[in-house]
């Protein structure tokens, strides 16, 4: 304990979030994270609540990207099915909250949306990992699951496809989904406009810190070991099947949370959220940002969506696609590790220049 108190306060606060499994553990990294969060928090004040409301979806999709980074970057499970959990949670929220009116329904919708997505991920994960399905076959099964949902939801246009008051709506989607809120009966708080933005931001920052702590914990070490060499990890006595199952389920829960935030943002969801283009977007964000970097994925998700929005014309997809090819060929691990290497290189050089006073035993970066 006494050794602990010798360390500066900022290091003690940071301790649970730092470790060898994450890219970026230096003062500079955390300073830029704090700056980033501050800028995002100031955004509604600077640009007004309308801009915040329309940008909220960037944060929601960033959360979806993070759900993939967690399972792919840290446990080696590439899933094209994050959108399946995302969409299932969205539809569940819609069905529950449209049927049960008042704040009770919305609160119940949030809980059941995330719960159904989690259970769905757990079921699928159990089916795959305990059945010996691995590597690229996991990827293909998850892609097929998303496409089955896409096909299924697409044909639910008829009036027989309604659950209580909620019509599924086929390709036109489900409309009239209520705003995000929490409460019981007629008393509660509604989060619309800029408030939705802040809820999404809080969810994103909370997830970021939570996952940093998780991947640097004992469980995180086991996840990374499973990614690096599954057979060897199993030889050491770890139940790698369970590790993959649990990781996949947590990833599904996070995707479900972002699905609930998505459907309350637009008050609307349609089957295109399950389609192959949508299914690939999280993979694109994670690949470009760096699949082993949560912060990198968040930055890439926000940046790519912003670019797509700016290039509203027909060339948007051409540019995004070319960017993807270029980044993977030039930087196979994404942008974040490159930035880390650059920062390390620059600090080393600065230290060499002022080498009369050797630096303390403090590590510069990870």
């Amino acid at each position: 304990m006494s050794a602990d108190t010798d360390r500066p306060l900022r290091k003690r606060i940071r301790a649970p979030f730092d470790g060898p499994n994450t890219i970026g553990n230096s003062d500079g990294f955390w300073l830029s994270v704090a700056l980033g969060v501050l800028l995002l928090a100031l955004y509604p004040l600077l640009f007004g609540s309308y801009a915040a409301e329309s940008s909220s979806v960037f944060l929601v999709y960033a959360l979806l990207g993070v759900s993939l980074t967690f399972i792919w970057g840290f446990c080696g499970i590439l899933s094209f099915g994050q959108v399946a959990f995302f969409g299932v949670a969205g539809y569940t929220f819609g069905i529950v909250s449209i049927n049960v009116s008042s704040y009770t329904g919305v609160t119940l919708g949030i809980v059941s949306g995330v719960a159904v997505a989690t259970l769905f991920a757990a079921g699928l994960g159990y089916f795959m990992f305990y059945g010996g399905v691995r590597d690229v076959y996991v990827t293909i099964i998850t892609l097929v699951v998303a496409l089955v949902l896409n096909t299924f939801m697409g044909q639910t246009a008829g009036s027989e496809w309604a659950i209580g008051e909620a019509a599924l709506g086929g390709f036109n989607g489900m409309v009239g989904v209520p705003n995000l809120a929490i409460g019981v009966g007629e008393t509660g708080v509604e989060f619309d406009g800029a408030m939705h933005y802040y809820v999404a931001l809080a969810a994103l920052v909370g997830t970021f810190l939570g996952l940093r702590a998780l991947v640097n914990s004992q469980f995180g070490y086991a996840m990374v070991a499973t990614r690096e060499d599954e057979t060897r990890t199993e030889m050491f006595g770890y139940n790698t099947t369970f590790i993959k199952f649990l990781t996949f389920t947590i990833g599904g829960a996070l995707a479900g949370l972002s699905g609930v935030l998505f459907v309350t943002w637009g008050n609307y969801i349609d089957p295109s959220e399950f389609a192959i283009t949508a299914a690939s977007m999280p993979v694109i964000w994670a690949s470009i940002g760096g699949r082993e970097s949560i912060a990198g994925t968040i930055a890439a998700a926000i940046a790519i969506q912003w670019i797509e929005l700016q290039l509203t014309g027909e060339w948007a997809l051409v540019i995004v696609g070319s960017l993807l090819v270029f980044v993977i060929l030039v930087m196979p691990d994404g942008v974040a590790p490159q930035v880390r290497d650059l920062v390390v290189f620059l600090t080393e050089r600065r230290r060499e220049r002022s080498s009369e006073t050797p630096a303390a035993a403090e590590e510069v970066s990870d």
Partner: protein
Amino acid sequence: MPVDSYELLNLAFQFLDSFAFIVLATVGLAIIFGMMGIINLAHGEFILVGAYATTLSFHAGLPLPLAMLAGVVATTVFGVILERTIIRWLYGRLLDSMVVTFGISLVVVQLVRIQWGNSLPQIGTPLGGISYGNYSYSAYRVLLAGVAIVVLAALYVLFTKTDFGVRARATMQDEETARSMGVDTDRMYLSTFAIGSALAGLTGALYAPATPMSPDLGASFLVEAFVAVVVGGPSVLLGTPLAGGLLGLVDAAFTNVGGQFIGTVALLLTAIVAIRLLPDGITGLLEDIREKRRETE
């Protein structure tokens, strides 16, 4: 009883149709994924290139067979260019190849949309129909099943009976050894990829008169192709017809009972269950059975 026999004939045609579709959608991908370890998510766009090149040259005045040839040639050239510039860096990088080819697919679909809009006038389906009772079935679609079988047979001969086939398979199995025995492995990769592209182009050319021409037509081939490759297993030349047979049967039976949508869902669910039960596909199962028999003998 004539009604029942018509029904049966209906089912048979439906089966031939699904079988041809699955096999033709799969062969190009099976060569590139099964043999080279490149997950080509742009496979559908290779088919798109073949279909568009065929349709455009037909409208430019070429007779249909020549237009189809043009489609195949265009796709092969397209594939060779991609292999030389991009794909060659991705051998042995399974997941990266998936992400990169997805990027290629986005670009190609969008470029086609920018250049030719959301649809092209479709070539009329040739050969007319076969009539029986109150039903009739497109003769061209039955012909496709024949073509699928011919393509499979030709590939089998090419990869097992010819010198080229032996060199190509040796390269895919053990590049180092093949190279030390004097095989130009770089050229083998290029030519195998070219064959895969040509087959995708052929699929596009053959389906040009049978599907609506739109920039996203590739997606309708992609899923079936992946599912069939995975269900078929590691030995692609044998796995493709077997998977095509199994999935075609499921698709035809359920489509007959409940319509197109039920057929597709049944096919996809069968695939999920098949992957779960047979992680190494049908040919993996056959291999296991053969091993066991050898042990008991």
